[in-house]
């Protein structure tokens, strides 16, 4: 695969002195979905705003499809679609005209067949003649996506696409992104819904305080940093953990019917086999065992709380 976006040593310091980005480097492959995770003010929106042309960087450079965003900005921007975080639409304009307008801005001639296809794929065709102010929040967000797709971009930026929307709509957005993935669109999304990143992204980049802490495939990240919890259900309840098993980090449930054991998947030895053997040795009968992977939220908190060097990915 080839890099559709190449970010090299990108920095941004605002006039106020705030350093929003520090020396960020990142390569994004064509067709992949990458999620940028970070707390509020981490620099996620600044990063995509620079790539899209809304913010002027103070250092570094960005290539989109091989075009420098500053010196060859027309060619670079033609490849990009942006769905902003805030819903910003002309309130007195029809949905279909909004989409046609954006297509025109990108230098494309009229193509109502394609616009119909986009609107249908986003379940907006029936609302094509409605004024945007008459739409629900979820529909407005879909109109923003339709506008961003109106010129067939190769790269789509979704800035907090599900911020402030309900669970059902969030699922709906994920389906839209999944469809775009199948269509081969490269997607860069920022979010602080960790479940969203885990669900959709091929790779996850973690940003904090303007620095890119790491970029890894989602599965690797979960495997590398994810802790697992082993729950052992007991046949007969225990009143307390036997002395021989103390110091293993075991916890007994209030009803005495389950033991939980947390282990690190990165460790050479998880200690599970030994633990089960010792339980048998103590005459404690096991009824069932189950494991649970720690959520990305826990992974994320681990990452941002540990001092790390920024990475080049």
């Amino acid at each position: 695969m080839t890099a559709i976006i190449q970010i090299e040593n990108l920095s941004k310091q605002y006039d106020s002195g705030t350093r929003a980005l520090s020396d960020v480097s990142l390569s994004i492959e064509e067709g992949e979905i990458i999620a940028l995770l970070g707390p509020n003010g981490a620099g996620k929106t600044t990063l995509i705003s620079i790539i899209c042309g809304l913010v002027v960087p103070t250092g570094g450079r960005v290539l989109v499809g091989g075009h420098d965003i500053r010196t060859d900005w027309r060619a670079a921007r033609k490849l990009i679609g942006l769905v902003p975080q805030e819903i910003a639409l002309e309130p007195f304009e029809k949905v279909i005209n909004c989409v046609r307008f954006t297509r025109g801005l990108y230098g494309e001639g009229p193509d109502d067949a394609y616009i119909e296809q986009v609107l249908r794929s986003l379940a907006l065709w029936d609302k094509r003649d409605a004024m945007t102010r008459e739409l629900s929040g979820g529909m407005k967000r879909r109109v923003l996506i339709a506008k961003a797709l109106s010129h067939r971009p190769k790269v789509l930026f979704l800035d907090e696409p599900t911020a402030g929307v309900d669970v059902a709509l969030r699922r709906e957005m994920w389906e839209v992104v999944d469809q775009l993935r199948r269509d081969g669109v490269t997607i860069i999304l920022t979010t602080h819904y960790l479940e969203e990143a885990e669900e959709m992204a091929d790779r996850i980049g973690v940003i904090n305080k303007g620095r890119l802490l790491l970029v890894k495939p989602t599965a690797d990240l979960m495997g590398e940093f994810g802790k697992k919890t082993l729950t052992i259900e007991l046949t007969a309840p225990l009143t307390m953990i036997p002395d021989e098993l103390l110091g293993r980090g075991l916890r007994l449930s209030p009803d005495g019917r389950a033991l939980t054991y947390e282990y690190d998947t990165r460790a050479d030895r998880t200690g599970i086999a030994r633990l089960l053997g010792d339980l048998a040795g103590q005459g404690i009968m096991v009824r069932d065992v189950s494991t649970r992977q720690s959520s990305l939220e826990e992974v994320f908190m681990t990452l941002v709380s540990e001092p790390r060097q920024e990475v080049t990915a």
Partner: protein
Amino acid sequence: MSGVNWPGVWAIFHHEMMRFFRTVMQSLLSPVVSTVLYFVVFGAAIGGRIQSVEGVEYGAFIVPGLMMLTILQQSVSNASFGIYFPKFSGTIYEYLVSPVGWIEVTLGFVGAAAMKAVLIALVILLTSFFFVGVHILHPFWMLAFLILTATGFSLLGFIIGLWAKSFEQLQIVPMMVITPLVFLGGAFYSADMLPPFWEGVAKLNPVLYLVSGFRWSFFGLADVPVGVSLVAVSLMIAVCCLAIRWIFATGWRLRE
């Protein structure tokens, strides 16, 4: 101009013109009613005392001034609102992330604002035919002055819209600067009618040059040489274009 994104220019121009046609009653009726009132007040009331100015019936004499008043007000307000509204609603991001530069954005917004102002001015001219007999001596130059002036003041309005951070700021320049300049720029009188000192002061007003050139195209009468009027409006267009180019190059009030 080969690198210009013409579909982008058309998209902006068309979008702005559609806004005008959506509110056509408000856009056209309001200036026409105002003009009728001007004719009643200035034409009938004052015209009853001033029979003619330099051989031109007073009612006809004020027609170019009324058109110029409308052109200036409409150009500034249309262009300033046109670019300010996307800033206010947040849709300005679209212009900043798409492959359109200062030339496309300016041509689209200013072209539409100037077109609207010219259309309204022509409707006012048609309206005036119901009240006075107006003969246009140089129709080509009348149209040229109309378009050049509308362009110049639309560019100025565009800059005001880029500069403004609130609706109050958006209105303050047209209200405090443009309107007084028009009224003091010979829209309803000839500068020759003023005492010599005030005639000299009036000639410091750039609007006088526009009204004068425009009136010349109607009646062949001018307070200042026509060439000077053309240079004045051309200079205004050039200075405004340079200012807009600078704003987009630096991102002032547009980009962070």
